[in-house]
Every structure is written in structure tokens, then in C-alpha cells.
């Protein structure tokens, strides 16, 4: 069986490129052809940087041909949520009000991806300013879920996730201050990680909230996420909040196939009440798989988690109202109605409101710190519901479990764990202590080795009319 290179994982594509069985130029052409065919419907890109991407692909091809040193991301097509600066390319954060914002230098993320040889395909559509989950963007188009185009891709990194799912990129850098990498990853049958706060530099990244903004990888597999994180993580003197913790080799935890010695916590009823039955069944089955892989599964109590939605909204939106005060003052009429209303209401919060929310946050941080003395990771659904239909009024029910890791600053990973009866993806959420990304990679990778949810591709990806650019790739889902 042959598959389009656009449907390969990063790891599979890298192996084929290294073995000279796949040309990086052919890979890029396959991805660009997929964009041309599907993006008019999916609306995943705001700006394409095809020329720059093709130049990187050609550089990668020369490196392979001449035997020059090149890494696993060399020539790999990756996209960026449109919050990440790329010199000479607008950073809109999904808002027409920022269409003229053209940075004159690369963000640290782009510098590091470029140094790794990544072919950056373009900037992805998102919910305006990151302030929502539907990606029904009034300025750049309604982004659609490739698994069912009548449903939302999630958000706010919905363009990034939909693009990767449909083969319009092999990976992406998303942004997450509450759910925005993990929930779209779950809604598109992908892996997505929000790393520890401070692990990835925010220099040259649009600021929404100072205390919760993070960027993170979205890809088809946990192993691909590890490859991307390896390239961008680490201290950056240009970001005052950047961690100086040494970055471990994330590939090492992927070596083992079982989970012996790990204790995984299953928290209180809050995470399993008012949850869609298909989600509940899939997550419970996944917990059984983790146990079968050798993990010890135990109950854990984090009762304050139920306040994460309230505290997260007050803190996040008050910080947004401050960071975007000038935008609201000078360009209110250019903002979408939902985002404008949210910023207006958040602007009326008192300082004491914000501080009360921070106190509630500290209760959560304390409970999770206590939990980490007992367990190595905590498992929950990523979202209480599968991807809702476009037009549904959703915000909190899709993000109420993911917000917690943003409040505690801890890393979290979403992994595909099943489908509803009408073929909508479901995600499993894993959270771990600060800087324990390796634990999440180990658990997520072992789970993917034992299951095949991540090998499925959305129906829209299966209709390439031309065989041009196809590769003899025996296993698309590796």
C-alpha cells in the first residue's frame, strides 16, 4: 500500500528522508497540494510561507544528498499558530485588528525550528486572540474539523490541529492558556502537549495571559511531539520567564514499551460526571490499557479542580483585558462580537476579584503538589464532550478539565483514545508534575504502541486524485 507523504508521521517521514526513499521536496509538494485542495473548505491557514518552506526542503534535500549532518526535523513541513512571530510575516493572532502587525525578527521558536531544518509552511487560523474554542473566525474564515466538517476543530489552536489531521502539515506549534493545544488535538485525533510553564520561550509570541500562556507541539504521535519539543525547549535569555532547567533527551523515555513502576492517578468524580457516554467509555477503556501495560492505577483526590473553570476564566480574561487594553480601546469595532464582549466584561473585574481567583488557584496548586507525592501522572478525559457542531454555544464544557494544568503550570498531554459512534475523535488527558514531560511521553507513547487510534486518518485526507508525490511508505501511522 502506498500513502501520500502528507499522511506520514514526522518520524516515518524522517526515516524515509534519511534512507533517501522520500525527497523533502516531494514531501513539501504533497503538503502544498493538500493545502490547495482542502484549505478552501477547512480554512486552516491565515498566511502561507510556501517559498520559505520549499527553500528549506531544498536545503534538506541537499544535506541528504551530500551526507551533511541533518536532524529528524530537517525538511519536515510544520505550521505555526498565528501567535508566533516569523520575520516579515504578519502575526495576526486571528484578528483583523492586528493584520498590520509584521515583526521584523523571528521568535525564538522560529529560530530554533529553522536551525533544526524545519520547513515552516505558514501561520494557522485560530479563534480570534485565542479567546474561544470554536475557531469560527469572523476575519479569516470558519475553521472546520476534517473528521466532520460540520463540527468545530476545537480551539483556539484549531487551525493547527485541523491542518495536521488533514495532512496540511506534519506537525504544528500551537498555543495553550487553558486548553488550546490539548483540546483541538483531542478533537482531531492527534497528540498535543502543553509543556511546563517556562520550558518553551515566549520571546516573539503574542501575549494573552502572562501567567498561563504556553506554546506546545501538536502532531500525529506522541513521539513526534517529543521531536518538536526537543527542538524548541530550553532557556532563552530573551524571555524573563524562561526556565533554566536543563532539557533532557525526550527520546529516552520512549524506549520502554511497558509502564512498570509508574503510578497513575484517577481523580474524583468531577472528571467523570456530566461526561458524554462515548468519552466515558473510551477513557475508562484507556485506563484499563494503561493498567495492562503495567502501571499501578490508584484513586487520587483533587477536589478543588472543580473551581478551575471559574478561577481560570477570571485570571485569564482579566490578564487578557490588560494585555489587550489598547486593542479594545482603539479597535473595538474591528473585533468579533464574542471577543469584544469578553474583553469588555473582563475589563470590569476588580483587583480583589483577580486576587480571589489567584487564591483559589493556590488551593489547586497545593492539592496537585500533594497528589504528586502519591502518583506520577493523573489521567482524565481531555474534554467532557466530543467535538460539538459548528454554531453550538460551547466554552467551558470542552475546556473544564484542561484548564487545571494551565493554572498549576504543569505539563499535560492529550492522546487519541477512541471515537464516538459517529466517528468523532476522543482524547485522553495526562498531567504530570513540573518538568515531568518525560513521564507523559513515556505513558503516551506506550499507550500508542498498544493501540491504533492514532493511525486513522480523516476521510477528507483519502481523496487525493493524483498519485504524484506518493511514497512507498508501508505504515502511515508509525
Amino acid at each position, binding site marked *: 500500500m502506498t500513502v501520500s507523504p502528507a499522511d506520514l508521521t514526522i518520524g516515518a517521514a524522517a526515516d524515509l528522508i534519511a534512507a533517501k526513499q522520500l525527497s523533502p521536496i516531494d514531501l513539501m509538494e504533497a503538503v502544498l497540494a493538500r493545502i490547495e485542495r482542502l484549505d478552501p473548505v477547512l480554512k486552516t491557514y491565515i498566511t502561507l510561507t510556501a517559498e520559505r518552506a520549499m527553500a528549506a526542503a531544498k536545503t534538506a534535500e541537499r544535506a541528504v544528498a551530500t551526507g551533511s549532518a541533518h536532524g529528524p526535523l530537517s525538511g519536515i513541513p510544520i505550521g505555526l499558530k498565528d501567535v508566533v512571530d516569523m520575520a516579515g510575516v504578519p502575526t495576526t493572532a486571528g484578528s483583523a485588528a492586528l493584520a498590520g502587525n509584521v515583526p521584523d525578527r523571528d521568535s525564538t521558536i522560529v529560530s530554533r525550528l529553522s536551525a533544526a531544518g524545519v520547513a515552516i509552511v505558514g501561520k494557522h487560523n485560530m479563534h480570534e486572540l485565542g479567546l474561544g474554542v470554536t475557531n469560527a473566525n469572523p476575519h479569516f474564515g470558519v475553521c472546520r474539523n476534517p473528521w466532520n466538517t460540520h463540527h468545530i476543530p476545537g480551539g483556539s489552536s484549531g487551525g493547527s490541529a485541523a491542518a495536521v489531521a488533514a495532512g496540511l502539515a506534519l506537525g504544528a506549534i500551537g498555543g495553550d492558556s487553558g486548553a488550546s493545544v490539548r483540546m483541538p488535538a483531542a478533537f482531531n485525533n492527534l497528540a498535543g502537549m502543553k509543556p511546563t510553564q517556562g520550558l518553551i520561550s515566549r520571546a516573539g509570541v503574542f501575549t494573552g495571559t502572562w501567567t498561563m500562556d504556553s506554546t506546545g507541539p501538536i502532531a500525529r504521535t506522541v513521539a513526534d511531539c517529543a521531536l518538536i519539543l526537543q527542538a524548541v525547549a530550553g532557556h532563552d535569555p530573551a524571555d524573563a520567564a524562561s*526556565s533554566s532547567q536543563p532539557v533532557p533527551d525526550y527520546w529516552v523515555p520512549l524506549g520502554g514499551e511497558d509502564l512498570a513502576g509508574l503510578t497513575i492517578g484517577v481523580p474524583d468524580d468531577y472528571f467523570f460526571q456530566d461526561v458524554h457516554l462515548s468519552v466515558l467509555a473510551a477513557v475508562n477503556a484507556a485506563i484499563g490499557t494503561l493498567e495492562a501495560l503495567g502501571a499501578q492505577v490508584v484513586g487520587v483526590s483533587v477536589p478543588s479542580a472543580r473551581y478551575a473553570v471559574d478561577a481560570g476564566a477570571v485570571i485569564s480574561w482579566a490578564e487578557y483585558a490588560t494585555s489587550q487594553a489598547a486593542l479594545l480601546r482603539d479597535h473595538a469595532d474591528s473585533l468579533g462580537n464574542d471577543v469584544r464582549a469578553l474583553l469588555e466584561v473582563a475589563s*470590569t473585574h476588580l483587583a480583589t476579584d483577580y486576587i480571589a*481567583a489567584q487564591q483559589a488557584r*493556590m*488551593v489547586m496548586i497545593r492539592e496537585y503538589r500533594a497528589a504528586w507525592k502519591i502518583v506520577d501522572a493523573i489521567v482524565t478525559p481531555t474534554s467532557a464532550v466530543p467535538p460539538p457542531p459548528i454554531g453550538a454555544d460551547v466554552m467551558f464544557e470542552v475546556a473544564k478539565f484542561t484548564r487545571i494544568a494551565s493554572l498549576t503550570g504543569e505539563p499535560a498531554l492529550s492522546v487519541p483514545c477512541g471515537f464516538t459512534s459517529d466517528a468523532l475523535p476522543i482524547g485522553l488527558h495526562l498531567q504530570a508534575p513540573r518538568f515531568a514531560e518525560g513521564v507523559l511521553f513515556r505513558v503516551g507513547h506506550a499507550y500508542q504502541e498498544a493501540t491504533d487510534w492514532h493511525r486513522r486518518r480523516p476521510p477528507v485526507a483519502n481523496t487525493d486524485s493524483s498519485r504524484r508525490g506518493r511514497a512507498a511508505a508501508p505504515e502511515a501511522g508509525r
Partner: protein
Amino acid sequence: MAEGRTAAADGAADAAAQVAAALQHAGIPAPAGRAEQLVAAFEAARQRVTACREVAAADALPAFVVQTHGGSTR
């Protein structure tokens, strides 16, 4: 019924006036009708704050703890 409708209208006007005053205090230009549109969102925000205050009152932890990783504070 007429009295009930009047009370409801008065309540809505009061709520809109409160929102308008809060917007004005925040320095946000609020064209006519804008405050009325925001009443429901404003009330939802108040409920979220109330929930946070209840948690905070039950367990009065400091709002901010310096979290150090490599010398940075956040």
C-alpha cells in the same frame, strides 16, 4: 402581571446601568445599547468571582507564591 413586568424592566435597567458604570470606570467606550447586551455575560462573570471568593475564604492561602525555576519568577 403589569407590576411584575415593570419590576423586571426596572431590574434590567438597573443591571444595564451597573454594567455601564463598570465599563465607564474601566475606561471603555460603551455606545448606546452595549451595556444592555453585556448584562448576561456580566452576571456570569460575577458568579465566577463569587465562586473564587468562596474558595479563597474557606482556605485563605496567599494569592501569589514566588515559583522559582532557574531564577525566574512567575
